[in-house]
């Protein structure tokens, strides 16, 4: 597997792989989100205490999951780019950032809509909510920094270091519900004694998470291709100017 990933570091080979992988990831994303969405919104049982509003979960939890996962992808590819000085890592990290920012915004937005009926307020300054808001600021900072230089290579390197600094926030987001007494409920899927959520709700939720992940991969590939094309146009323009 390691060898295969390494081979993808060649941009031409990556583009070939991307062209083949895109239709599959897109089709799986549509399939999983359609099935999980219909199952979760119409067939899954309502919650005993929360009633029908629990259905916000089928969007909120996958979005929050992706907010963290995108950041991990961004930090991982940034680290690879800094360590092996490979430009494709910067391209992938830059492509992942706006997607992650949108997922974070979606998680915050659906969380606010869910918070109003459950807690009586759209926003509380609770550890989980605040740390996710900070995650959103890190995405914004990354995007702003990577676009702030006239030389795109310089922006990419500076932003990659920032992405690695922001990793300190990820465990705070994940464990905020365990470390502090928060209004936000504790983890109910990934825990040592198994999930505390009923299978009738867990199945559509997992399907939605899977769908969101495939959607992310499809958009990531699309955006990475666009970034590579932009780099290529820039190089061609420079060559035209020089000649």
């Amino acid at each position, binding site marked *: 597997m390691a060898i295969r990933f390494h081979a993808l570091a060649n941009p031409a080979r990556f583009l070939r792989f991307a062209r083949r992988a895109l239709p599959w990831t897109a089709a799986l994303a549509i399939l999983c989100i359609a099935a999980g969405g219909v199952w979760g919104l119409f067939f899954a049982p309502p919650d005993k205490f929360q009633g029908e509003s629990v259905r916000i979960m089928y969007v909120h939890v996958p979005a929050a999951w992706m907010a963290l996962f995108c950041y991990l992808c961004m930090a991982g590819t940034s680290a690879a780019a800094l360590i092996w000085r490979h430009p494709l890592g910067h391209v992938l990290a830059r492509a992942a950032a706006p997607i992650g920012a949108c997922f974070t915004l979606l998680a915050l937005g659906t969380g606010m809509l869910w918070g109003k009926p459950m807690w009586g307020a759209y926003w509380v300054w609770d550890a989980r909510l605040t740390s996710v808001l*900070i995650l959103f*600021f890190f995405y914004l900072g990354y995007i702003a920094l990577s676009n702030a230089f006239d030389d795109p290579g310089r922006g990419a390197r*500076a932003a990659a*270091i920032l992405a690695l600094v922001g990793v300190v926030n990820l465990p705070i987001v994940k464990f905020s519900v365990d470390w502090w007494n928060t209004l936000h409920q504790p983890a109910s899927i990934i825990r040592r004694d198994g999930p505390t959520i009923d299978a009738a709700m867990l199945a559509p939720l997992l399907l939605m998470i899977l769908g969101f992940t495939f959607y992310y991969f499809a958009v990531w590939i699309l955006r990475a291709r666009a970034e590579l094309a932009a780099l290529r146009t820039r190089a061609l323009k420079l060559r035209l100017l020089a000649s």
Partner: protein
Amino acid sequence: MKAGGFGALLRRDLRLALRQGSDTATVLAFFVIVVSLFPFGVGAEPQTLSAIGAGILWVAALLAALLSLDRLFQADYEDGTLDYLLASPAAPTMLVLAKCLAHWLTTGLPLVILSPLLALLLHMPAASYPALMLGLALGTPILTLVGAIGAALVLGARRGGVLLSLLILPLYIPVLIFGVAAVEAAATGRAAQPHLLLLGALFLAALALAPFVAAAALRQAAE
């Protein structure tokens, strides 16, 4: 790494700060003005002011630190001194540490010394002064060290100063939380020590890690 590099750079930066003299005065004036805006904004009732005084002082200290941070490496970057410093046998982490120490001595330490006077103006209880000063003494070096990362990252960027605030203010939030919590604990007669110990832990972590990140950022800026 020879210790001479550290001492020489520290002496140079302190001498520059003393001869130009403007940075310390500007930062202190900014700190005082921001704090004195609040009685106009929230009303001058002593109860209101003493209730939010810790928050006001800490937020003003964060902003004051931010104000001076974008200059930390900027002048050396623009006139090429930074390239010479990085080419010297001194370890880049030591250069960052020397710059941070000079920055803290000229901007952080004056804030710590001035803070009780402003606490007096905000009608804060006298019992909270030691926690406020100790908290700021532990917290302002963190602001400098973490800020050095941001200051190194934005070298040569368009609108670097504004960008710097977007990059490092989120990282300042833990310092703000524990700093304010220590003052409030002391004001209400509870122990401020746990919060101060956490601030101390944050300081040690920043001291151990931030110079490496800032040095990496400086190296890529000088490339």
